[in-house]
């Protein structure tokens, strides 16, 4: 086989490589017996330390668990098993928040209704003089005494 001086094509490289490998393979078979023996011993040593094969052990399944009544793809039911409680929890929290909002609005509405339906106009409560009159005026004692009477 002749090659040009400087440049090799990929085919020529492959041909040269294969020819060299064939020669090297022949050479590898002629290694001394002592080396062969040591290689054999090394191989035996390696095989003795071989990684043990994995043995498949089936997991124990509890009676009454979801796996028993779902015969088929457990993946979906497993996913549903942990998603469903989460969904229930989220909707529950939203419901509680909604209920609290409603009850607060109702309380405010009751107060507003009481104020609007009272004899005293609502603006009067904003007047500081009227508030002082209610606290310190003659009606304050009468109110407290009448409250006592009602409580009795």
């Amino acid at each position, binding site marked *: 086989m002749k090659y040009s001086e400087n440049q090799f094509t990929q085919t020529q490289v492959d041909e040269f490589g294969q020819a060299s490998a064939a*020669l090297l393979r022949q050479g590898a078979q002629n290694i001394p017996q002592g*080396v062969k023996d040591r290689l054999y011993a090394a191989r035996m040593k390696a095989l003795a330390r071989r990684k043990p094969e994995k043995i498949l052990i089936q997991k124990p399944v509890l009676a009454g668990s979801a796996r028993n009544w779902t015969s088929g793809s457990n993946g979906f039911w497993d996913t549903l098993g942990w998603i469903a409680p989460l969904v229930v929890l989220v909707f529950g929290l939203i419901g509680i928040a909604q209920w609290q909002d409603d009850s607060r609005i109702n309380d405010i509405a009751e107060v507003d209704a009481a104020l609007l339906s009272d004899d005293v106009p609502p603006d009067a409560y904003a007047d500081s003089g009227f508030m002082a009159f209610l606290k310190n005026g003659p009606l304050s004692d009468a109110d407290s005494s009448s409250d006592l009477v009602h409580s009795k």
Partner: protein
Amino acid sequence: MASAQELSDFLSGIEQRAFKQAVYAVRDDDAALDIVQDAMIKLAEKYGDRPAAELPLVFTRILQNRIHDWFRRQKVRNAWVTLFSNMGKKSDEGDDFDPLESLSAPDDSEIHQDGAQKLEKSQLLQTLESEITKLPVRQREAFLMRYWDELSITETAKAMNCSEGSVKTHCSRATQTLAKALKLKGITL
């Protein structure tokens, strides 16, 4: 998953090639044997449960990593040896140690017994192996994995942790260097 028998067959088929590749890299039979043994044990211990088809690539990677580790250790060891040899240099000056005395000649008795064809092949192999050991590390790795281990370009790139283009370049350069060196000695493959 590779059975014990498959793993044994794989190791038996690859051990001599692995040994030669380690020898090309480290140029020391004992060190090469240690490297191959380590690589075999690592493969069996850590990857013994892999499918049989994956074993060649995994083993090649382990072997290359072991060779690189050996060079790293040698570098550290050489640094210490150099340090201590410099310290004790004065006392060793009178020593007339001749390194040639400890150099063993290659055993070529078998060559003379066979015919001219075997001699030629043996010399060719010796020359090729000698030139392969002189290649830069990455070129040698790519060349041997690609053609001796018969890994594809993609597998070689994966084992060497580089791009496919780099593998092609390494192989091409290795081929050019080897072909040129052989041609200087009047050999064409």
